[in-house]
């Protein structure tokens, strides 16, 4: 139904012998916030660099706004706001210079919005980028990424290593961006609670493979956490085919499953287990279960 802003099909990429991306598909619907999660080295940054046209897909296709970001970089990049994980800003510039420099690249730069953000973030125009703290640097990078009101905002680990106040600024920037009709956000993070908060879709990468892409609410409601108690302590670890993860010791175990709740419960009952609690797991628990099985 809805059109895709980013459409990635069958993209694979290796660095030497290491497979960074393996037949990855990803579709980012217009107006959505997609949270890309995965462990370090899962391929998140590599995937985002394909979206930005910094890497050329060797196999598969990448389309952003229906265009190839490698062949058509100017028209694609002018509509993208990007904040990289390393926040590579020119150290020798002052904040004011950074703003006018960035503005030169983007015809749609909004001076009033940039100024509003600068004051909100308490950055002074003549402060040198080199002297900024980590949090200030993230804020300066954020101004450069969103003041041209991009159609697509791409953030690579925007909150890593930042204090809660700056993280809040970043989350509200994401929210403001989508609240402006039809704008889209694709961001990677390993702060799962944050992803759960602001994303409406989640994409889970693991060792270069896309494990799942789904609306957030579907992911949360299709997984179940059961706590089960057995008459006798189990002498070997609990193992169930339909479960993603079983954890515990002795008489009490926690079982996390996806969708197959009825069959998991039947199996547990057959083992003389009494289910003492049924709950909805958090995205964090689901992620851990999927990664470590």
């Amino acid at each position, binding site marked *: 139904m809805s059109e895709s802003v980013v459409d990635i099909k069958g993209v694979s990429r290796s660095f030497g012998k290491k497979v960074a991306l393996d037949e990855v598909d990803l579709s980012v619907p217009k107006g959505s916030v997609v949270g890309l999660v995965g462990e370090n080295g899962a391929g998140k940054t590599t995937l985002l660099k394909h979206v930005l046209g910094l890497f050329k897909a060797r196999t598969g296709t990448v389309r952003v706004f229906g265009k190839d970001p490698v062949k058509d970089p100017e028209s694609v990049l002018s509509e993208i706001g990007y904040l990289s994980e390393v926040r590579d800003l020119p150290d020798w510039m002052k904040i004011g210079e950074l703003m006018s420099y960035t503005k030169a690249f983007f015809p749609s730069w909004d001076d009033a919005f940039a100024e509003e953000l600068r004051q909100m973030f308490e950055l002074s125009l003549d402060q040198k980028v080199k002297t900024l703290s980590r949090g200030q640097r993230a804020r300066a990078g954020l101004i450069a990424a969103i003041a041209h009101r991009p159609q697509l905002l791409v953030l690579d680990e925007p909150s890593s290593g930042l204090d809660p106040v700056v993280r809040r600024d970043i989350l509200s920037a994401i929210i*403001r961006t*989508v*609240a402006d009709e039809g704008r889209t956000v694709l961001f990677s993070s390993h702060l799962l609670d944050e992803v759960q*908060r602001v994303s*409406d879709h989640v994409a889970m990468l693991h060792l270069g493979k896309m494990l799942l892409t789904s609306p957030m609410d579907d992911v949360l409601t299709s*997984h179940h*956490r059961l706590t089960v108690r057995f008459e006798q302590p189990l002498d070997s670890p609990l193992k169930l085919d339909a479960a993603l993860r079983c954890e515990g010791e002795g008489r009490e175990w926690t079982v996390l499953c996806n969708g197959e709740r009825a069959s998991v419960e039947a199996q547990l009952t057959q083992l003389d287990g009494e289910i003492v609690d049924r709950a909805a797991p*958090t*995205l*964090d628990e689901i992620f851990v279960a999927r990664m470590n099985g």
Partner: protein
Amino acid sequence: MQIHITEADGTPFYQQVVNQIKFLVASGRLDEGEQLPPVRRLAEQLLVNPNTIARAYRELESEGVVASKRGAGVFVSDSGSPLSRKEKTRILHERIDALLTESSQLGVGVDSLLKLIEQRSKKFDSPRGGKS
């Protein structure tokens, strides 16, 4: 309007917002005809996706808890009372179910539980107790 959402349990956020607004209506903290905050403002306040809030409002509207007036915003429905009665029952059912589960796990039967409830409720009968 004070809403608190948590990622600590996996209940989808839109559902948490729906439940809490229903609770506010049922308990009279949101009056008939009162306006709910605009989607964007509530999203920024709670730091959640605006689509989540929009979905919660749609859900509340389809259940008749709120009504949106074109261009003016979203308001608590006038026909709140029968619904709020139903909602009160629903909220209590939820708590009762949780209590029954817990007491059965503790090996306390329904009869003893009822007695306990009566005893405890006497504590609230003093003049300082909540409104009936």
